[in-house]
């Protein structure tokens, strides 16, 4: 497909477990963004990559959250020692850079029991 692909679509984990969420951006898109969306709210920024460089991680809520994009394409968001408040939809977006809109994947719904 030509869009942003995220996996898994749904993830259930027990409190304290580590999880990894994957994002496959649109081919050739330089910029990649991660957002967290709580129920009934708008998406909130987590972190931003330009190619493999993580240029902004100001939105990561704690040091339990870690993101990487080692080869400048696929990105992984990892959450260690998950807590119930981590339950949310995690959205990934990409764009070619510059004055272009971000295109979103369908997200991963994470539920922490």
């Amino acid at each position, binding site marked *: 497909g030509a869009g*942003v692909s*995220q996996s898994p679509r749904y993830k259930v984990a027990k409190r304290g477990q580590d999880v990894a969420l994957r994002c496959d951006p649109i081919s050739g898109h330089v910029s990649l*963004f991660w*957002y967290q969306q709580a129920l*009934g*709210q*708008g*998406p*909130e*920024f987590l972190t*931003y990559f330009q190619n493999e460089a993580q240029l*902004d991680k100001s*939105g990561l809520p704690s040091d339990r959250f870690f993101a990487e994009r080692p080869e400048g394409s696929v990105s992984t968001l990892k959450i260690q020692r998950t807590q119930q408040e981590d339950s949310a939809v995690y*959205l990934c*977006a990409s*764009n070619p850079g*510059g*004055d*272009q*809109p*971000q*295109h*979103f*994947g*369908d*997200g991963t719904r994470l539920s922490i029991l």
Partner: protein
Amino acid sequence: DQQVKQNSPSLSVQEGRISILNCDYTNSMFDYFLWYKKYPAEGPTFLISISSIKDKNEDGRFTVFLNKSAKHLSLHIVPSQPGDSAVYFCAASVHTGKLIFGQGTTLQVKP
């Protein structure tokens, strides 16, 4: 501190009429604004954008208006169709970086 606000949680309009969705922002550094549409269990879909050097942008049935002095953004949908029923988010950014989103407005278009 909510930098982007959509004060109407919901809006209901009749098919064929105009839908007007509103958005206010506080950060005068924002220079790029976008509207996204979201269906349940899907990611946001880009609709239309406007840069701060313009005050209007049109794409088919969708028009976005920007009033910089009032820090106000609006999306007009004419004519509204039942398939437009969704949650609409406005978003803003500085230099096309990270997006700051509003809370969303649920639009229902009645046949």
